[in-house]
C-alpha cells in the first residue's frame, strides 16, 4: 500500500488526495482585462428581413465575461458529476484580492457564485492615478491562504484520533486566468508563487487550524489576440508545478477549459447518437439527434479494457476540440426496464455538454420522466451489444455500465436441483407477506447511530422466531382464518390490553368450535397438507400443540405470557374435563368476564426468568414480592429508548456498565468508508 501513499502526479484519479479536491480560480479583474474584447456576437439573427429593417450592431463580450462564464461552466460540470468532495473557490484580483466563497459546502454552488460575481461587478475603469497596481499577484497570494485552510473532510481526517486514518496530503490546484503572459512572466509568477507558498506554509505550520500545502499545481491561462508558446507542466520545486496555456480570443478559452476539465477530473465524453425526436408542431415526422455528455472516464472502462470493441470505430476526435468522444447508439427502449436487475458493473453521474440545447433537454426530460434507455456498441465482427443503461434516480441522471463480456454464470444449475429444490410446498405467499411487512425505508433525522442490521434484526428475529417453511410442517398457519389475530398480534414487541383480549377471544372461540365438533377448514383448498386424512380430534390436537409452541416462542413481555397462560389454562381444564366433554358455557362465560375486567387482566403471574424460556404454569402459583412484580413488569422491555449514555455503555458484567464520556471527542463522526460496524449495543441486558 505504501505506493499509493506516495505523492504522484500521474494517475491522480486512482491515488489518494487528488489535487481536484481543492481548486481555486484566480480571475484577473483589472481594467485592461475588462476592456479587452474576447469575442463579438452577431446580434442580428432575426430571419425575417422585411423592408424598413434596422440592422443591429453586434455586441462584444469582454475577456472578463468569457472567463467568468468558463469558470462557472467548469463548476457546473464538476458539481453535476461530483455532489461532494470536489470544492472550488473563486478569487478575483485587481488592485486587491477579493474572495467570493469559502470551502464550506453551502457556498459551493453555481447560484452562490453568480450572486457573488454580480456583487463584484465588471472590472473598474482604468484609474487615472496608478497608485494601486492591478495584478493577479494579489489573487495568488490570497489563493495560498485559501489553500492552507482545511476543508471539512481534511479537518475531519486530521483531527481524527483513529490510528488507521491515512494522513492528509494537501494537494491543490490554482487556475489563474489573465492576459499577455510569456515565458519570462510565467517564470516570474512561478517564483512569486513559490515564495508565497513558503511563507504560507511557515505560517500554517505554526497554527492548529491551518494545513500546509503539500503540492500546488498552478495552471495559468493567458488570453490574447495572438498565440504565444504554451508551457507544459514543469516542477518549480517539490511543492509547486506550473503550466501555461495560451489561448486565442474568440472561443479559445472555452475550448481550452473543456480539455482541462476532462483532464483535471478524469472525465470522458460520450455522444449518444440517433435519438429519435419529434417536433412539437409536426408530431408525425421525427428526426434523429445526437447529445453529447461528460462523465467520469471509468464509465468507459468496460469498453476500453477488454479488446472486444474496436475503439477506432467508436471513438472520434470532437470537431474543433482537442478531445475524443465515444459514440454509442440509442437503442429504442423496450417495455419497462426499471424493475429488472441489470448486470451493472459501475454507475456514474452524467451532465450534458450543451445543457440548454433542445436535443439535450429533450433527452433529459425523457430520463427524468422515469424512463430509461440502453446504449448500444458495435463489437468486433459486427455484433451489437448493449453496453450502457441511462436512467435517472431521484432526479439525477446516471450512466450504468453493463457487463458485455462472457458471464461466469452461464448455464447455471437451477435452484430446484439443489438442497431443498424438490420440496414443493414452501410457504411462498406467506414469505412474500413477511417481506412486504419488512420492507426497508430511509430513516429521518441526521444523527444516525449503528447499522441498519442492528436496527432491524430484533424485528426480523421476532418475526421469524416461529416460522415453519413448508405448508405440511405447520397447522396454525394453514388455519389463518381462525388464528389470524394471534399470529399477527403476538409478533408485536409490546401488546396492549386490548390485544391480549383479542388473542384470548380467538383461543376461546376455537375452544368453542372444538366443543361444537366443528371441523377445521383449510383456507386455500388448492394447497395440500401432508397427512391429508386427519381426524377432527387429531386436527385440534395438532393445532393446540403447535399454537402452544408458537406462543412459547413469543413470550417476550408479561402480556405475551398472559396469552400463553390463557391457552395453557383452558387446555388443562379441557384435558381434565375431557370425560365431561368441554364446558362450552364456561368458556363463553369466561369470554364475557374477560371483557369486563380488561383493566385488571394484567395482574400477572410474572416471572423473573429470561422471557424467552418461561414456564408460566410453574410460576403461576408462586407468590411475588412487590419488587419482583415491579421489576418484571417495568424493567424487561423498555418502552422508550434508553438514555444515550446507557445505550452506548459497555457491559462489565454483574449488571454494571461503563459509559464513555464525550464519546464524540475521540470518535469523530464515523468515516465514510470504514466506520460503523462497532456501534453500541442498544439494549443492555439487566441480569436478574
Amino acid at each position: 500500500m505504501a505506493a499509493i501513499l506516495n505523492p504522484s502526479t500521474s494517475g491522480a484519479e486512482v491515488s489518494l488526495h487528488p489535487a481536484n479536491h481543492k481548486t481555486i480560480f484566480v480571475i484577473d479583474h483589472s481594467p485592461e482585462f475588462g476592456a479587452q474584447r474576447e469575442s463579438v456576437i452577431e446580434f442580428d439573427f432575426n430571419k425575417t428581413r422585411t423592408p424598413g429593417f434596422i440592422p443591429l450592431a453586434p455586441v462584444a463580450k469582454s475577456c472578463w465575461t468569457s472567463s467568468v462564464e468558463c469558470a462557472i461552466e467548469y463548476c457546473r460540470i464538476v458539481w453535476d458529476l461530483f455532489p461532494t468532495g470536489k470544492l472550488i473557490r473563486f478569487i478575483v484580483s485587481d488592485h486587491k484580492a477579493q474572495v467570493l466563497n469559502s470551502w464550506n459546502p453551502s457556498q459551493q454552488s453555481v447560484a452562490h457564485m453568480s450572486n457573488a460575481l454580480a456583487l463584484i461587478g465588471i472590472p473598474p475603469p482604468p484609474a487615472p492615478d496608478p497608485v494601486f497596481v492591478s495584478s493577479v499577484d494579489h489573487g495568488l497570494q490570497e489563493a495560498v491562504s485559501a489553500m492552507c485552510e482545511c476543508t471539512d473532510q481534511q479537518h475531519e481526517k486530521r483531527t481524527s484520533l483513529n490510528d488507521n486514518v491515512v494522513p492528509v496530503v494537501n494537494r491543490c490546484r490554482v487556475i489563474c486566468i489573465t492576459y499577455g503572459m510569456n515565458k519570462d512572466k510565467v517564470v516570474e509568477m512561478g517564483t512569486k508563487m513559490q515564495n508565497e507558498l513558503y511563507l504560507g506554509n511557515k505560517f500554517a505550520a505554526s497554527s492548529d487550524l491551518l494545513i500546509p500545502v503539500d503540492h500546488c499545481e498552478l495552471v495559468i491561462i493567458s488570453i490574447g489576440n495572438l498565440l504565444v508558446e504554451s508551457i507544459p507542466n514543469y516542477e518549480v520545486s517539490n511543492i509547486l508545478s506550473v503550466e501555461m496555456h495560451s489561448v486565442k480570443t474568440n472561443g479559445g478559452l472555452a475550448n481550452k477549459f473543456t480539455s482541462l476539465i476532462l483532464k483535471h477530473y478524469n472525465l470522458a465524453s460520450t455522444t449518444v447518437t440517433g435519438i429519435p425526436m419529434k417536433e412539437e408542431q409536426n408530431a408525425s415526422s421525427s428526426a434523429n439527434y445526437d447529445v453529447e455528455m461528460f462523465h467520469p472516464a471509468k464509465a468507459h472502462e468496460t469498453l476500453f479494457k477488454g479488446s472486444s470493441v474496436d475503439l477506432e470505430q467508436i471513438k472520434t476526435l470532437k470537431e474543433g476540440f482537442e478531445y475524443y468522444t465515444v459514440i454509442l447508439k440509442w437503442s429504442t427502449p423496450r417495455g419497462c426496464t426499471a424493475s429488472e436487475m441489470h448486470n451493472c458493473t459501475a454507475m456514474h453521474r452524467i451532465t450534458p455538454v450543451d445543457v440548454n440545447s433542445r436535443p439535450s433537454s429533450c433527452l433529459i426530460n425523457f430520463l427524468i420522466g422515469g424512463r430509461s434507455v440502453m446504449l448500444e456498441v458495435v463489437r468486433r465482427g459486427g455484433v451489437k451489444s448493449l453496453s450502457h443503461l441511462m436512467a435517472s434516480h431521484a432526479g439525477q441522471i446516471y450512466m450504468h455500465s453493463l457487463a458485455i463480456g462472457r458471464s461466469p454464470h452461464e448455464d447455471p444449475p437451477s435452484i430446484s436441483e439443489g438442497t431443498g429444490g424438490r420440496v414443493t410446498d414452501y410457504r411462498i405467499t406467506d414469505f412474500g407477506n413477511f417481506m412486504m411487512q419488512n420492507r426497508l425505508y430511509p430513516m429521518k433525522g441526521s444523527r444516525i447511530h449503528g447499522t441498519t442490521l442492528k436496527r432491524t434484526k430484533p424485528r426480523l428475529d421476532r418475526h421469524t422466531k416461529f416460522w415453519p417453511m413448508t405448508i405440511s410442517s405447520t397447522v396454525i398457519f394453514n388455519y389463518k382464518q381462525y388464528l389470524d389475530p394471534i399470529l399477527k398480534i403476538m409478533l408485536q414487541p409490546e401488546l396492549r390490553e386490548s390485544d391480549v383480549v383479542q388473542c384470548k377471544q380467538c383461543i376461546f372461540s376455537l375452544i368453542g368450535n372444538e366443543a361444537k365438533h366443528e371441523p377445521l377448514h383449510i383456507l386455500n383448498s388448492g394447497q395440500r397438507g401432508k397427512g391429508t386424512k386427519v381426524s377432527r380430534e387429531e386436527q385440534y390436537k395438532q393445532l393446540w400443540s403447535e399454537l402452544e409452541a408458537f406462543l412459547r416462542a413469543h413470550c417476550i413481555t408479561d402480556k405475551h405470557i398472559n396469552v400463553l397462560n390463557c391457552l395453557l389454562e383452558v387446555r388443562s381444564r379441557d384435558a381434565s374435563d375431557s370425560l365431561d366433554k368441554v364446558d362450552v358455557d364456561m368458556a363463553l362465560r369466561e369470554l364475557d368476564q374477560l371483557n369486563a375486567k380488561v383493566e385488571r387482566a394484567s395482574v400477572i403471574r410474572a416471572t423473573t426468568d429470561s422471557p424467552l424460556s418461561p414456564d408460566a404454569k410453574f410460576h403461576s402459583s408462586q407468590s411475588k414480592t412487590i419488587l419482583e412484580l415491579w421489576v418484571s413488569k417495568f424493567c424487561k422491555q423498555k418502552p422508550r429508548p434508553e438514555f444515550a449514555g446507557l445505550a452506548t455503555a459497555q457491559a462489565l458484567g454483574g449488571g454494571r456498565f461503563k459509559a464513555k464520556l464525550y464519546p464524540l471527542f475521540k470518535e469523530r463522526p464515523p468515516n465514510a468508508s470504514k466506520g460503523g460496524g462497532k456501534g453500541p449495543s442498544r439494549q443492555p441486558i439487566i441480569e436478574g
Partner: protein
Amino acid sequence: MPTVILIETTYSMNSSVRKYNVEPYKPLPSAVSGLCTLLDQIGHSSRLEFVCLVTYSNQLEVLVQFTRDLEMIKTELLNIRLTDKFNLIEAMKSVEKLILMEWGSGIPCNVVLVVQDNYVNLNSRLLPFSFPGNLFICSLGPEVMRDPVPSHPMNENNPQFHVHLLQPEVPVMSHGIVQMFAKLGEKHYCSWTGNLACGNLNSKITLSPNPEPSFKVTDFDYATYTVDNNLEICGFIELKHLGSPAAVSRHLVLPYTHPSHGKAHAAQRSAHSSGDVDDEPLDEGHTPSFCVLLHGALKVENMAALCQVGNNWYGVLFSWADSKKKSNLMLSLLEPGRDSIPWLGDLNALHIPSEPPPEEDAFPVKPPDKKSYSQNGVVWIRQGGIQSDIQKILRHARKIPEKTQQFYKELNRVRRAAICVGFLSLIDGLAAILDRECTLLPSSTHPACAIQLTHAAQALRDSLSKDHKYIIAPMKMSF
C-alpha cells in the same frame, strides 16, 4: 474464477533433472500429474469453474477453450506435444489478451503459469494484468527461485491483482511438484461456504464464484473489505426502487451440499414441525431450504433482500434467470461503503417502520442539490445559448398581453445572468432589439404589446437595471 493454465512445452521439460543426489525427475510428467490433482480439487470444490489450457511456441496455442469439462483438460494434458521454444513474455501478453477478449476486465481470473526455468524474468511493464485475479508462477526447476517481480509498485495500478510464486520443496522430486499443485488447489480453490440468515431462518450456502476481498480507494481513504461468513438480511426492497446498482461482483447463491453425508445439515434450525415425525429418510432435495423459500418469494414479489456482507459492505439478493429460464438466487456485492446506492440514501440509515411511511418519505431519497440540467440555468458559452434565450423573449413579446408575465420573467432572467457575468452590453443590445421589434409588429397586434415593449426597453436602459436585485415589472395598464 476462470483459470488459464499456461504450460511450457519445450523439449527440456521432458528430460530428467537430478540434483542433490535424490531421485531424478522429469518436469513435464510431474507437472501433468500435479495439474490433474489441481483439476480434481477444482472439480470437487467448485464445479462451475471454467478452465482453459494453453501453451506457446510461435504463437499462443489454445489446447482447450474455457470449459467446465475438466476431464477434457486432463486428457489433453496427457497428449501435449513438445516444441523447441517458449517465449514467456509473448505468452503472457497473449494470455492477458485471451482473458480480456473472453471475460472483459471486470471478472477475476487466475493464471497458472507452469515453467521450468528457475529464473523467470517478468518485467514490470507486463504486470499487473488489467483484470483482477492472481498469477501463480509454478516453477519446476531444481533451484530456489528468486522473486521475479517486485510486488509493491505494481499494486498502484491494480491492487486487486496478486502474484504468487510457488516452488516445490528442495530437494525437488516428482512428489514435491505434485504437492505444490495440491497446495495451490487447497489454498486458492477451496469453495466459500457460509451462512445466509434472515432473523432465525437460515441456510448454509456456497457462493459461485467465490467472493473476493474488495479494495477501495476514495479521495481520503483506502481499505480492503472482506465478505463475512455470515450474510445477514437487513430487510427487503422492491426492485423498482433498487434500480440497477453497480456491483463489484455477482455470485450464484447455492444451498450447501455436503459432499459426504446427506441431510444432517438441514437448513432450518428453528422451524418446529408440528409433531408428525417422518420416519422415512429424506434426501437433500426434499429437506426444506431457506434459500429456496427466499428465492421463490423474491421472484413472485419482484423484490430484493438487502444484506450486510461485511463491515460497511452490503449486497443485494434477488432472483435471476439466465436465458434458459433456469431461475436462481443471485447475490450482487455492491461497491463497499454505505453510500453505494445514492438514491437509497445512507445504507446504514434504513429501518423497518411498523407502518409503511407516506410516499414522500419512501425511496428514492432526494438529494439536497439540484443538477444544472433540471434548473433552467443560463449558459452562453456557445452562441446558440444566447440566441435561443433572446428568441424566447421575442416569442413571448409577440404574444403580449397573454404572455406578459412570461415575457418579463424571461427578460429578467437574461438581464440578471448578464449582470452576473458582467455582460452589460447585452442589456443595451436587448433594449435595441425590443425597440426594433416594436417597429416590426404587424398591425393586428394588441396595442399593449407595443406599450410593454417600449416600457421594457426603457427600463433596460435605466441604470437601475444594472442592479442584479432589481426586477423589471410590467407596466400597469387599465385595459
